[in-house]
């Protein structure tokens, strides 16, 4: 997943959250007692906090965390809502909004000086002293202010050495942004880029940072301001930033040390590396190269202009993606589908016209058809997205959280190419975030604890998506400590949900976890365990028309199974003819096909039929019989399609195999209801409907009333 893509998701999400926040706050002004609105703001803050942390906007995240605390007080009625408080919250909303907008333009949120003051105010509302919560941020600044040696009008010279962690780009930070930031605060006199650790081109990982920098800047601002630029990277001990006041080396703005080592020499030094390597380095780090060229030849004003231009182009780039109502996409998809069908019909009519007319038409109808198909394909793609992007986002999150909590966690992804409706993808993110956090916070144990229980120190979180029975399944499982059903039961008793004497089943016990405000987490971490959690998760999933279930075994792990409806999914399908009807078998389930010859067929107890596949026999399901269709009376030999139903391999008896093609599955439940053995309907080229078989459902249908499998095994 590209960082850009991650950010795009974040920005659209943030935009929505801010909208929700604003709207809810407005409502709160007129209905201060409305608890659901309070909860909405709380959740928005909560999500804002975690999403911002995920993309590395730490200051934003920290601020949202403070506000979340404030909302928590409001929620628990420790702070009452007044007009002033609402205005204050709106002010905070605006601040966050402008920070997000700045971030969208490529400025790091670090630059927002308003945050500390605002945070101070929030704390006042919370009744907290400043030192209590954020000593970490304020302390280094105050100490450094006292160490600022002088503030001469001529300005001071600072030498800055910057060495960042190699994977800094993946955390959403960009050293270049820091350079720009510095450029705004100070005159950058020189930038030396150390290319020595740059590997040969072919071994280079473009996502890694191989460069270190030494900067010389001149500024009349206090050292604290310069240090502030690095506040967020400095938190990470893998980043090494040193700022040294070197004013004493300068006389009349000239670096006396330069006498021995002029700037140009450094560049010449770098040319000692083969020219090809430099060339490659420059293509890889083009912007840094530009920065190098600009050095000293450009005034801060001109530099500002370029930064401005870049910001503008970034804003334009961001605006060039639009959010479209999925209803509109649906309508468009339906209309385009119908258009291609009409085009096909017209082509058929044209084909019957006399030769002189068709000659005149030439290849025009064909190209029209081709365009139609392309439009259809594009429209289709507008709606469907593989879940991979979402999954990878969690890989990142898990890694960071694991590090934070000193745990070792590996996230294993499966079924990333399962395509989901855009709508579903957008809404599945929140619940998945929560569940995965849950796995990390409460599921996976610390390495020592894991070793003691005989597990590998590295915990594993499995993220899997697949399609089955006409539904999309997303499974999240961890091999952690599992859910302590007894602790949940105790909590339920404490909350008065059940009586001391009640002994509900584990399944019933896990359901308590979906009750708002129910949490067994012992401490409030910055990640989860506040009781905003599983109830929100369940809510979100139910809104998508899905369900969620928890399975857990103490000491072994927990599995969350999310089942979502298949609103719109594209599959590769094999068209088969059975009697006069045509069905689509998902190609994914098809193993092979064969002629259904007498020699391959065996009967068990005169009833159940099995068909040979290689060395073994598998149950044979005659589609005509199970679906109640009259078989075709033809001389053609019946065929068998071997499919895998997850549980076992089945042979499906059909009359003919026609074609394979990509089809859009539409669910039949929307206007009708679920039909056993049928995953949905697909629209055929002639505009009619073909039913898509649900192999898993067929299996169930067949074995639900037939005991042949017991005889086979």
């Amino acid at each position, binding site marked *: 997943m590209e960082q850009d893509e991650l950010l795009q998701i974040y920005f659209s999400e943030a935009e929505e959250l801010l909208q929700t926040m604003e709207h809810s706050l407005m409502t709160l002004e007129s209905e201060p007692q409305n608890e659901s609105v309070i909860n909405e703001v709380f959740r928005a803050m909560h999500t804002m906090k975690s999403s911002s942390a995920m993309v590395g906007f730490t200051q934003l995240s920290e601020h949202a965390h403070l506000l979340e605390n404030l909302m928590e007080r409001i929620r628990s009625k420790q702070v009452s809502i007044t007009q002033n408080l609402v205005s204050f919250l709106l002010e905070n909303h605006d601040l966050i909004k402008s920070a997000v907008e700045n971030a969208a333009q490529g400025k790091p949120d670090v630059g927002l000086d308003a945050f500390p003051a605002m945070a101070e105010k929030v704390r006042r509302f919370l009744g907290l002293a400043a030192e209590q919560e954020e000593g970490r941020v304020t302390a280094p600044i105050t100490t450094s202010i006292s160490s600022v040696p002088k503030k001469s009008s001529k300005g001071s010279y600072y030498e800055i050495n910057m060495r960042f962690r190699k994977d800094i780009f993946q955390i959403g930070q960009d050293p270049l942004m820091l350079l720009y930031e510095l450029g705004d605060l100070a005159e950058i006199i020189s930038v030396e880029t150390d290319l020595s650790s740059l590997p040969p081109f072919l071994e280079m990982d473009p996502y890694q940072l191989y460069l270190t920098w030494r900067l010389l800047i001149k500024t009349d601002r206090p050292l604290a301001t310069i240090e502030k630029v690095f506040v967020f990277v400095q938190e990470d001990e893998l980043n090494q930033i040193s700022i040294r006041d070197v004013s004493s080396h300068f006389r009349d703005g000239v670096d006396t040390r330069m006498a021995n080592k002029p700037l140009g020499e450094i560049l010449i030094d770098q040319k000692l590396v083969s020219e090809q390597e430099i060339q490659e380095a420059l293509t890889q780090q083009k912007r840094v190269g530009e920065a190098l060229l600009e050095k000293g030849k450009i005034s801060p004003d001109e530099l500002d202009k370029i930064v401005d231009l870049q910001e503008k182009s970034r804003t334009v780039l961001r605006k060039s993606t639009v959010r479209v109502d999925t209803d509109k996409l649906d309508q468009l*998809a*339906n*209309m385009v*589908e*119908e258009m291609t069908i009409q085009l096909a019909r017209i082509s058929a009519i044209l084909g019957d016209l006399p030769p002189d007319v068709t000659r005149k038409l030439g290849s025009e109808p064909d190209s029209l058809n081709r365009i139609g198909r392309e439009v259809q394909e594009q429209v289709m793609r507008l709606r469907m997205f593989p879940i991979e992007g979402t999954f990878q986002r969690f890989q990142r999150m898990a890694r960071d959280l694991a590090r934070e909590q000193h745990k070792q966690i590996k996230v294993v992804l499966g079924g990333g190419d399962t395509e989901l409706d855009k709508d579903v993808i957008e809404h599945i993110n929140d619940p998945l975030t929560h569940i995965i956090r849950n796995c990390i916070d409460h599921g996976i144990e610390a390495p020592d604890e894991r070793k003691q229980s005989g597990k590998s120190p590295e915990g594993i979180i499995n993220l899997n998506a697949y399609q089955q029975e006409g539904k999309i399944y997303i499974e999240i499982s961890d091999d952690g400590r599992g859910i302590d059903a007894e602790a949940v039961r105790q909590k339920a008793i404490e909350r008065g949900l059940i009586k001391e004497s009640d002994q509900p089943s584990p399944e019933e016990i896990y359901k308590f976890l979906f009750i708002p405000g129910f949490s067994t987490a012992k401490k409030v971490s910055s990640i989860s365990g506040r009781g905003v959690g599983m109830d929100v998760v369940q809510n979100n999933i139910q809104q998508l028309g899905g369900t969620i279930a928890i399975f857990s075994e103490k000491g072994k792990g927990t599995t969350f199974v999310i089942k979502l409806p298949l609103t719109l999914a594209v599959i590769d399908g094999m068209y088969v003819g059975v009697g006069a*009807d045509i069905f689509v078998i998902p190609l994914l389930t098809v193993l092979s096909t064969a002629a259904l010859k007498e020699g391959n067929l065996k009967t068990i107890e005169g009833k159940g039929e099995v068909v040979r596949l290689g060395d073994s026999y598998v149950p044979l399901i005659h589609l005509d019989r*199970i*679906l*109640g*269709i009259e078989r075709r009376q033809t001389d053609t030999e019946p065929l068998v399609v071997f499919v895998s139903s997850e549980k076992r391999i089945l042979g499906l008896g059909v009359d003919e195999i026609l074609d394979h093609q990509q089809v859009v599955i*539409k669910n*039949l439940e*929307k*206007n*009708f*209801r679920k*039909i*056993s*053995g*049928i995953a949905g*309907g697909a*629209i055929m080229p002639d*505009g*009619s*409907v*073909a*039913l898509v078989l649900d192999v898993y459902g067929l299996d169930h*249908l067949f074995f639900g009333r037939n005991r042949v499998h017991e005889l086979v095994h």
Partner: protein
Amino acid sequence: MEEQYITFYLDDEEYGIEINKIREIIGYRRFTRVPGVKDIVKGMVNLRGVIFPIFDLRLKFNLPPKEYNKFSVIFVVEIAGRVMGIIVDTTSDVISLSPEEILPTPRLSPSIRTEYIKAVAQQGDRLIILLDLERILDEKELEELDATA
């Protein structure tokens, strides 16, 4: 206040449905049969990318089945958010009924199911049976359709 109805025939009987319940009227088209459902569900059709079921009310009213022909018409209706089609022999026309013309459902022999009948209208010699669509195809009905359950 007058209300408008669309009337149609099933054999010799004339039925009426409120016009505002009908989204669209389309010609007969090939259905895709659906396995494991009651006979009243004739199959699924596609209309501009929307797939919906077609019901034959003849079977609901215990009338003998009839071959569909070029006069067969499908009323596309929306009931409780679901799009459905009702296939009828022919449309008759659109009529306006004044409240005086609408009579309460007469008592019929117990063997005739009257819960789908909203009222009966009389216009001259014509007797029009006004249907309660919501009742005919409500969710309970749909569940009942599941022959495999």
